[in-house]
């Protein structure tokens, strides 16, 4: 069992390989449907360790701003960093950060029902995505710079500034056409 990862130019949605264009549309829909759509930027974009990383950070901020502009009243887009992979003692503050060792705490606390990982090293993203998938009902999107993530419900591959900007364009394009799930009181929390 298991799923195949997409080839360049493709993505996967729930394990089914699709053309990338379809994944942009679906990801934008999921963001616009969610009560708390959230972007989780990881160290690879939080730190300006090269020029490309800084540009990706700008694109991430643009995507977040676009989301804020395009959602309806009652929806609360969030941008929560994953600055560190090591467990935090004595505990993390789920309002200001997410940690891959217990990402469910942040999901539950903020009632996040759709999230996107970007700039998180693959092995840590896999761990976090598995925990989220197993312990919450949050829809997970991976904007992966490598080959994609089988544990995300929707995964892009070869993430670039252009791809992040394109997703933002799709969010703008679908503005007002998607009905948000405002009635789902439980949202991301599964228990």
């Amino acid at each position, binding site marked *: 069992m298991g799923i195949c990862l997409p080839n360049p130019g493709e993505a996967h949605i729930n394990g089914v390989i699709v053309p990338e264009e379809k994944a942009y549309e679906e990801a934008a829909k999921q963001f616009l449907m969610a009560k708390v759509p959230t972007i989780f930027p990881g160290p690879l974009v939080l730190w300006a360790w090269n020029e490309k990383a800084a540009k990706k950070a700008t694109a991430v901020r643009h995507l977040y701003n676009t989301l804020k502009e395009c959602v309806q009243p009652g929806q609360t887009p969030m941008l929560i960093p994953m600055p*560190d992979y090591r467990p935090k*003692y004595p505990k993390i503050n789920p309002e*200001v*950060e997410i940690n891959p060792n217990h990402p469910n705490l942040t999901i539950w606390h903020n009632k996040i029902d759709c999230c996107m990982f970007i700039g998180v090293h693959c092995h840590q993203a896999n761990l976090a995505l598995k925990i989220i998938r197993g312990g919450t009902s949050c829809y997970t999107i991976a904007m992966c710079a490598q080959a994609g993530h089988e544990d995300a419900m929707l995964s892009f591959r070869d993430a670039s500034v252009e791809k992040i900007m394109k997703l933002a364009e799709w969010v703008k394009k679908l503005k007002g056409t998607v009905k948000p799930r405002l009635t789902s009181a439980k949202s991301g929390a599964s228990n």
Partner: protein
Amino acid sequence: MSKERIKISEDLYDIMPSDYQDLVKSATYGKEDRGWKDIGNSKELIEQHSLCAGCPESMAFRYILASLPNPEDTVMVGSTGCTSLVFPMVAVHNIHSLFGNQNAIASGLKRALSVRFPGRTKDVVVLAGDGATVDIGLDMTLQAWFRQEKFTTICFDNELYANTGGQESGLMQKGFVAKMAPVGKLFDKVRLPEIARESGCHYVVQCTVSKPSLIEKVIKNAVMIAREIGPTYLQLYTPCILEIGKNSMEGLQEMRDSEKPTERFAYKEYISEPAKQLLAEMAAKDKEKKAAAKQLAAQGA
């Protein structure tokens, strides 16, 4: 890592937790004369930790991290024990090794770093408890010294296995009765500083962590000698106040009592001839620099 890279992406700066912002703004990476006096004036390289209140190990950690001469280009290797609870909160690259394996890991790491970064100084510092250094990992500890591996080994000596409830360790003092060693230790504390000297360490110090200035001095000496000459070893008494029946505020006094000239943690130091020469050269350069700075200040006035 280079300190030039320690920069948060401008567009995401506002969402970074404050501890990371503070590290970038006011930590002492790259400061040449960094030392324990920076504690309180700058962001420390240790965040909250989960050690017990008043634990001398936490003091030791703070002094060591404040004294490393080159933290942005240092990798620390830890092992199982109380120290492993602290490393997640340390803003210096670090690796957790298998219990006792720390000096083997550090050997490979140091060699790999010198191949990968031939033109750059990379320091490796092992920091482990007495169980990892003297009991479980003694083979790896000694072999690294025999091979003259160029890194510093620091042993936090609390004279027992504190993390697991107080079992007897090789560095426990003779006759000591611990919670999980009710008969009392039957043989003497292993004399690792002497063994280190005979095994080829160029700088060996045994002391407590009651004096931050002393810790700064020995850490700097140990790292610089390891960088240039060969292995160095520091054995620091960091008593486990819980396991010896003391209160939180009594750790410092316990160390002061144990470092008296007749006690088992009286200051002990061994410096090899090449290391002595290096320290003398360093002192001379330092003197020159200070004199030049003084002259410059006088000219300015």
